[in-house]
């Protein structure tokens, strides 16, 4: 009986198809997350501190991208400081700055103080691509205060960066 011989072009085609099919299959096996652009957050003028905490947590996980780098409650070899209990450490981290001022400095002027053992890497948060507003940053501070402490900030809280224009990027974020 004559053996069926598959044409060469069909064999090569099958190989190309099977290879791309395999890689497509691998692509379906990893977690599937569709990342939407950050939604505009409305910070109402009458927002209470507890409402600010809620929005702050939302910003940290979304628009602010904070949790892409920072962890909460993780130990070991870390690339960026863990935020567990940060409300306590912030009180005395930089001499002369209270927790709110320290948090504000770390977001508006992140290279002013680098936590020992870590590299500079925090972007200026009120500038693009993150571009949080003064009110949104206050909400983030409210949430950070809950990590080991009690939130005290309100939308009326002032600090030296509030209302100042975002610094020029000089061509980089």
């Amino acid at each position, binding site marked *: 009986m004559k053996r069926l011989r598959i044409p060469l072009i069909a064999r*090569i085609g099958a190989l190309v198809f099977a290879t791309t099919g395999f*890689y497509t299959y691998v692509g379906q096996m990893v977690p599937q997350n569709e990342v939407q652009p*950050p939604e505009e957050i409305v910070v109402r003028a009458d927002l209470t501190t507890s409402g600010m905490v809620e929005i702050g947590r939302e910003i940290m996980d979304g628009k602010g991208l904070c949790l892409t780098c920072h962890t909460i409650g993780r130990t070991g070899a870390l690339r960026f400081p863990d935020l567990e209990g940060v409300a306590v450490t912030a009180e005395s981290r930089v001499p002369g700055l209270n927790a709110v001022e320290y948090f504000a400095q770390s977001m508006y002027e992140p290279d002013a103080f680098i936590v020992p053992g870590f590299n500079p890497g925090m972007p200026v948060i009120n500038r693009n691509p993150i571009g949080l507003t003064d009110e949104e940053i206050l909400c983030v501070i409210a949430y950070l205060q809950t990590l080991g402490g009690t939130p005290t900030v309100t939308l009326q809280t002032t600090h030296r960066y509030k209302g100042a224009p975002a610094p020029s990027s000089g061509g980089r974020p």
Partner: protein
Amino acid sequence: MTGRLGQSPGKNQKRASERERATHRKWLFVLGPVAALVMFAGTVQIASLLVSREYKAPYRAPAATVDETPRAEGLTAERADAESRARATPYVEAEYRTFPVVGSRVAIWAVAQLHLLFAAFVLAVPLFAFIIEAIGYKTGDLRYDRLAYEFTKLLSVSFSLTATFGAFLTFMLIILYPKFTNYLMSVFSPTFLPYVLLFFFEAFFLYAYYYGWGKFHPLVHLGLGLGLNVVGTAIMFIANAWLTFMTSPRGISDTGAVLSVMDAVTNFTWMPINVHRFIANVAFGGSVAAAYAAFKFLQAKTDEERAHYDWMGYIGNFVAIIAFLPLPFAGYWLAKEIYAYSQTLGLQMMGGAFSWLFIIQAVLIGNLFLAANYYLWLGMGRVEGVQPLQKFIKYLLIAIALSFMVWATPRSIIATVSEIRAMGGSAHPVLGFLGVMSAKNTAVNVLILTTFMSFLLYRRTGKVATVAWAKTGHAAQLTIFAAAALFVIFLGVYGYFVEATVRIRLSVPQVGSVLLAMASITAIDIFLFHGARKTGEVRWGRIPAISQYVLIFIAVTFTWLMGLMGYVRSGLRQHWHVYGVVRDTSADAFTPTLGFATQVVSVTVLLFFLLIGFVFWLSSLHERPDFDRSGIS
């Protein structure tokens, strides 16, 4: 039994079937006009469809025979009103337009990817054609000259397709993303004229190089090849400025106003991309050329043809793998520059939305290493007396498999809630340690060292070193190899016990030790095997057919890898056209799932292979005998 004219019935049958085939062939001439008619009809149909969407006045008999009715007056007034409103509407520049069915982003993505794949091929092939031709000139071996010409034959059609896809991409950008394209044009307009001029030069050099084969003094021809490569590389550098600017803009104000075009060109990721693409193009071009040789090998009818295409496939693959080995280092530099430009961007890449993409990449690169090594091991069979070396293959295979497993281990594992609770987090208590960069850097360096060892083994097949210091030389090479491997592993483990500031810097000595080991072992090898005694001849063509499918597999994997990494480079910007400056407000501003991205990559890869198959077929027309006109009555 013989026929009436003394011919056998078999011959008569053959003639009859030839006559029948000739009759059928006569009908083939209508194929072209029929295809043209079908295309024309299709074009008319599309045009009709578009036109039918406009308002058309109903047919009216000539005015002399029909009285104006109130309805006709009403319609006329309506038309006049619509026209005056249209005239009064001010011109508004469209920000986005939508591509039907797949959307604008996918349409641009596919066209850009196809353009890049052909461009990579067109830039890479001249590079190694030039090197091979130069080797042929230097050694006087005409085989090299023939090989370089064979590679070059693939160029002319590929060049046309690259240009066509480039024009297609430009039109698509203007149509679908007019505002953003206009912005890019305003920033980079000074680069356009040099780009077009270089493109003219590219065409001149390419066709002069191709058609001038054997027509000039070899050095003049080599000069044309050099010109082709210089111009091609310059074109790539200009185009790279446009796309890298989108990821790491520079030379503009916060609002996007141009401050310095030179700064915009020499942005943070420009040079790393130039270097990365240059090396990757060579690897990709080598692999596609090797796939072409594999295709021809499998088609070959004679031993001579098989020997030639086996050799061509070997050279193509050799070029691909040699270029592939330093590629992770170039990729590392690019990633480092991305981090230096913006930590946010870097962390999005490695720890955010794209982190799992690198697990897919690990599977691809692991496959490439496995396949490349397998091809080399199969190739050892070409040489007699290879058995003493084959016993080392199993150790190399174990090293590759282990490195592959480490590299493909993710940091966090997809698990159910109860499994995550049992593990104490999304990271596995043991395997989770393999998911961090310390482990992965170590794995990739060991993979590179192992593949390099496979090459060394292959080089040793059929040769015995005869220099007086041969034993010492072998021992020195082995010691360097072992020292480099141990140093890389030591630094990998050490990385778990130090702070981030120290750990990040450890990859540099890891890479440095591997490069140093490869350079020093190669240097020793050259002197060690100078004047070596041959123990067996290389029998080109004597290789299992499976090896040729391995070459095709490598080419497909390379192409797919380019598609995937092209996606991460571009997708990294997420909802920004120009990162941090020009925001994407279109419906496609979201980052799709990796599953969707891999589907798009696969479709473009299949389209590319369909088209490159067409290029191979066109190139093979050279070798076809001329049409036999004797049968035409």
